[in-house]
């Protein structure tokens, strides 16, 4: 199957914060979109189509956000669509946009994802009282805590691993001016002293609730000509599986494993541990770093926690993970996946500033959503496919 080459030529994101009261929802997405266009040296007039993503409509109570936001994103007279795959949506939105380029349909596509969590309550929006079903009343943390506990038991991991990830990602965030959390002096004692929210997940091992948006300009080979430092899309993959079925391994889901293997095949990568330089992985609760390292095949099963423990996943380590500070430091849910993809692109473009991974040439962007049931991933490279 032949594909047109696709490059990321513009990246933009907002300052992420608990409450961006200074902007409306249109103003928020606009901020990210203009930064991406500016990075690409383009204006809305140069864009062929707009692909928008966000998490469930119940999060802000805006039904059909693509209609609501069309004028803020300069979409008048252009194709515009909305993508939705729960928490992985930021990733799958970027992938849909990339496919429009790879299919040869468009030359330049603007893709945007956002969440304005301050306008709603994402936790309760995830727990509606549906008749004939027990009410979950747990939020994401309550759902994932038993999976984390199961991982710790299976892997025989020491209890401090989650704390280490929480500290490491917040230290990374201090180098990222856009990150929501800038926790000067963060250390293990601070994390350990924070309240146990959903045993074994402490408050500081949890992502924040953020307002924010992310945008990218994707371009065909022709449209990327002349672009300074494009990031080439080497592979994309999406997989899903039901939330619950007999025999499901929710700790190390099959859909995630299959997604990663399909991704590596498409990108021509046969040894991801050697060929990838860094990864932005969707880690909303600290223990998901080792869990996803294993799911992605970047560590052997039961061994992911050792990479964290050895410091391999910290900046300066042999495989830095979430150099941007990750979801643990900024979580505008709908945008969180796209931030992973965009940060991966910034790394291979050498444009990550203070959180640049030295010599990053190939980077993985990863997102997951729902009850670990949706996966979206891409690999970007400084090298054209």
């Amino acid at each position, binding site marked *: 199957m032949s594909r047109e080459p696709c490059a990321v030529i513009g990246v933009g994101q907002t300052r992420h914060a608990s409450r961006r009261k*200074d902007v409306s929802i249109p*103003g928020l997405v606009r901020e990210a979109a203009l930064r991406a266009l500016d990075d690409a040296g383009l204006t809305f007039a140069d864009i062929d189509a707009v692909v928008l993503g966000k998490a469930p409509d119940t999060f*802000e*109570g805006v039904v059909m956000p693509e209609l609501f936001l069309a004028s*803020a*994103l300069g979409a*008048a007279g252009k194709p515009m669509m909305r993508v939705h795959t729960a928490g992985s949506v930021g990733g799958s939105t970027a992938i849909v946009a990339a496919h429009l380029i790879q299919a040869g349909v468009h030359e330049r596509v603007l893709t945007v994802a956002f969440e304005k969590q301050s306008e*709603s309550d994402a936790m309760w929006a995830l727990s509606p009282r549906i008749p*004939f079903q027990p009410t979950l009343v747990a939020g994401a943390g309550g759902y994932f805590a038993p999976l984390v506990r199961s991982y710790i038991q299976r892997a025989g991991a020491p209890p401090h691993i989650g704390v280490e990830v929480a500290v490491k990602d917040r230290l990374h965030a201090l180098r990222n001016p856009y990150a929501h959390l800038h926790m000067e002096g963060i250390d293990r004692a601070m994390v350990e002293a924070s309240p146990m929210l959903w045993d074994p997940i402490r408050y500081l091992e949890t992502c924040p609730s953020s307002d924010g948006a992310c945008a990218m300009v994707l371009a065909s080979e022709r449209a990327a000509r002349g672009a300074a430092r494009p990031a080439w899309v080497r592979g994309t993959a999406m997989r899903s599986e039901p939330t619950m079925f007999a025999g499901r391994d929710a700790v190390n889901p099959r859909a995630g494993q299959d997604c990663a293997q399909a991704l590596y095949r498409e990108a021509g990568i046969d040894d991801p541990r050697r060929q990838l330089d860094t990864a932005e992985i969707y880690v909303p609760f600290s223990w998901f770093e080792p869990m996803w390292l294993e799911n992605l095949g970047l560590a052997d099963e039961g061994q992911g926690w050792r990479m964290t423990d050895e410091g391999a996943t910290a900046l300066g380590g042999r495989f830095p993970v979430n150099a941007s500070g990750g979801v643990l430091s900024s979580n505008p849910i709908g945008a969180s996946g796209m931030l992973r993809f965009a940060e991966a692109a910034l790394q291979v473009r050498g444009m990550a500033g203070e959180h640049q991974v030295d010599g990053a040439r190939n980077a993985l962007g990863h997102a997951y959503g729902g009850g670990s049931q949706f996966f979206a991933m891409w690999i970007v490279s400084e090298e054209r496919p």
Partner: protein
Amino acid sequence: MATPDDSEVLKAPYALQYTYTRSTGPVLGHFFAGLMAGRVLGARTATGRVLVPPAEYDPDTGEAVEALIEVGTAGTVTTWTWVDAPAESAPLSRAFGWALIRLDGADTAMLHAVDAGSPERMATGMRVRARFAAEPRGAITDIVCFDPVEAS
């Protein structure tokens, strides 16, 4: 598979409700603040059009609007319809007209109610003036309705 008859199939109401907030942003925020003060603000675009109610971005070009400017509280009906039996949710409890009203100084029309008493007093091209609420709340309902302005 054996299928139960309809009387055996259970159903239950499912009310989905949450509390949301909205940040109006710099453009609509000023528009609503203006209404509280009995003023109507429109957005002037780069092409010189004045949008009332204002938009943050020019719907034609996608450009940010350039400025908020005050427009008149009187205007002209560009088209209308009549409501004989108002629903409970209607802005007026007696029969009234819905009209698109282009305020003086605006290039676009907005939908609002006209308290004309009878359809015979309604006409495209008629002049109307905003009636403001005694206790404004910073919402479009701070304009209670429009009253016909008789030609003098």
